[in-house]
């Protein structure tokens, strides 16, 4: 029958295509291609869209970067055509989409990606070091690198090579509701110096303010990466270990047990809301609870200040944010017990822009990328709002008006750490989330840590786990 024959043919074709390289591919890069073109067209793709997700970022590209760059090029006698390709999806969906573009050797010339994806994309051959794409001399010639701290550059690097230009970063702190603290008789200029300090403040709130959840320490798989980034990892660095270092992942180590131990202290003593951690919208609800004064302490990134409780446009607005919301550095388990012997710790993330190795106009794309990360463009990107940018010169100018963000830029960023950008990281992160969920559900720390270590061994192999 014809259908049968077709099926067989299609199957054969599928196997041939898959084996001959449609699933895996690698293409050479020619950095000099079209370097002298008088007319060229470029496309920028980002996970931001006017009127939706990261609307400010989209407006910046469309209303500032593109017209200014075209003007700039016209002055040099070149005709540039630049288009913007917005998206507005979850990070995972956006990642899939651009991975498919890059794999097929098509797509935009400049992509905005999360720093954590650099390693996976590089391993897959989707992106290449800037030196390979545009030439080492051209890359080194950019004066903007001097303004970007090495730790921030590291967020867009992999195995010591720069793959793109970072476009800002963030830092995690402990937020607390000053009014609730005052009501409970606690200092409104609070800065805990150990985990015991946090627990004792939470206990005070529990005993004096019934109906208020003392502390929100993200836990469980429902919150996904928010559990890892705003819970497990900041505590882990506070216990003196990064999740991956020296070729090994943390297994059933003292630091992991310390981290889970804090979860046990919070959630077995009713200092946190156990049920909320399993709620599909637990994180959003914790924001609402904090904004409504039903939650006292919360560990979050500076995004919480800029995007959640922000008085005008936040998703859980607090009209009196500046008076009510206090913030403090995250302490290590004990003074000097954090990574690098620090007494305070943080975790950071952030994205940046990479060049598509298949771009037809690599030199021009690199020029555009430099333009986007120049001082003027970076200032314009903020559009009056405060946010921590990649450039020190800009941060010094614009953050002065926002005490919280200059606090993060000056006091938190020097202490911070970044996640390892490996393809297996999301699964290790998931194992961490599961371990915290176990503890919230009543499992003892030692058992949860052992189960976690076992899970990590099956993910990365027993030889790559430190116990």
């Amino acid at each position, binding site marked *: 029958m014809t259908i049968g024959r077709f099926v067989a043919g299609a199957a054969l074709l599928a196997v041939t295509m898959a084996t001959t390289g449609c699933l895996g591919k690698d293409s050479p890069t020619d950095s000099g291609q079209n370097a002298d073109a008088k007319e060229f067209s470029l496309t920028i793709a980002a996970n931001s869209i006017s009127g939706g997700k990261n609307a400010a970022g989209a407006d910046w590209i469309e209303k500032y970067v593109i017209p200014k760059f075209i003007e700039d090029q016209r002055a040099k006698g070149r005709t540039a055509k630049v288009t913007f390709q917005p998206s507005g999806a979850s990070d995972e*969906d956006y990642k899939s989409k651009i991975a498919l573009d890059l794999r097929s050797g*098509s797509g935009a010339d400049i992509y905005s990606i999360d720093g954590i994806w650099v390693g996976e994309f590089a391993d897959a051959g989707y992106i290449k070091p800037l030196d390979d794409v545009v030439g080492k001399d051209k890359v080194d010639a950019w004066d903007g690198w001097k303004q970007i701290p090495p730790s921030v550059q590291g967020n867009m690097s992999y195995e010591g090579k720069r793959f793109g230009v970072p476009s800002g970063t963030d830092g995690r702190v402990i937020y607390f509701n000053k009014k609730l603290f005052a009501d409970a008789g606690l200092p409104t200029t609070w800065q805990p110096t150990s985990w015991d300090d946090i627990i004792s403040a939470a206990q005070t709130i529990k005993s004096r303010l019934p109906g208020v959840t003392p502390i929100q320490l993200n836990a469980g798989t429902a919150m996904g990466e928010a559990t890892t980034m705003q819970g497990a990892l900041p505590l882990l660095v506070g216990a003196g270990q990064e999740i991956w270092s020296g070729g090994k992942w943390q297994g059933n180590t003292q630091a992991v047990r310390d981290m889970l131990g804090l979860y046990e202290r919070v959630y077995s003593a009713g200092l946190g809301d156990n049920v909320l951690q399993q709620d599909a919208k637990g994180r959003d609800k914790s924001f609402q609870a904090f904004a409504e004064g039903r939650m006292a302490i919360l560990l979050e990134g500076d995004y919480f200040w800029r995007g959640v409780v922000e008085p005008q446009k936040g998703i859980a607005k607090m009209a009196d944010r500046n008076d009510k919301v206090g913030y403090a550095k995250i302490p290590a388990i004990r003074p000097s017990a954090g990574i690098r012997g620090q007494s305070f710790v943080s975790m950071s993330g952030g994205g940046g822009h990479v060049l598509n190795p298949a771009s037809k106009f690599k030199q021009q794309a690199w020029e555009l990328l430099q333009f986007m990360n120049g001082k003027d463009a970076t200032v314009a990107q903020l559009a009056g709002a405060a946010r921590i940018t990649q450039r020190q010169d800009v941060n010094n100018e614009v953050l002065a008006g926002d005490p919280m963000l200059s606090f993060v830029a000056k006091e938190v960023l020097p202490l911070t750490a970044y996640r390892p950008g490996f393809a297996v990281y999301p699964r290790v992160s998931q194992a961490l989330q599961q371990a915290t969920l176990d503890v919230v559900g009543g499992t003892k720390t030692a058992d949860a840590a052992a189960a976690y270590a076992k899970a990590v061994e099956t993910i990365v192999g027993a030889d790559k786990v430190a116990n």
Partner: protein
Amino acid sequence: MMLVVKRILTYVVMGVGTAFFALPVLWLLSAPLDDTPTYAVRPPRTFSLDNFASIMDNRYAVASLVNSTILSLGTMVLVVSAAALAAYALSRARVPGRDALIYLLLLLSSVVTGTAAMVPIFLLIFQLGLIDSHFGVILVLTGGLLPAAIFLLKDFIDTIPPSFEESARVFGASPLQILRQIVVPVARPGLATIAVWTVVQVWGSFLTPFILLRDPDKQPAAVLVRTFYTEGGSPNLGLIAAFSLLYSIPVVLMYLLAWSRYGFRFHGGIKT
């Protein structure tokens, strides 16, 4: 007496049914009008139409509804016509194992609509040069929906006694005439069912258009509704709720129209 009991029973079923289906939708009425919506159904604390104003300001909003309409109608036409032909042929042909074949296709379609098929679908459409075209999306969606449509429609066509067609054939009708004048009118509720079903499936489909389209002016509403989140991944509940209302209205209207015009079998003309 029986009649009264029956009537009461009917009303009870309908009352409970209405409550069950209406309750969850209440949030959709309260949240868009609220300045600071939460996960609770409550009268708006600060009544505001800002959410609707923001949606109207969104330059993709109206276009996305148009795009959704293009995609769903395009897919619907393809699915309904292809399914009608295929189901008729399969219903009348004496091929051994045809039911099994349709069912296998149906199973395969469930694989193709899943996430795992993303890579093959993308590369296929890429090779065909149909990235960033509505037509490519329509083709992929049609491929995924067709088996179920055939499967559904075949039951309706099976109920048409072949004697109808034979008598038509005696009067010299061509196969296409038979299809149009006898099969289509009788299978009309079935056709309406798969038409509505197709529209609904396409209207809500996210992954295929998201992966295959590039130009934001071409994206359908189901993709746009995912953009109302913050950089931290938290939803902007007000905008989502307001847009969802606008999003649902065209489909409900389409359904009511299609159903009242085509949903019922035309019994008058045929003696059974």
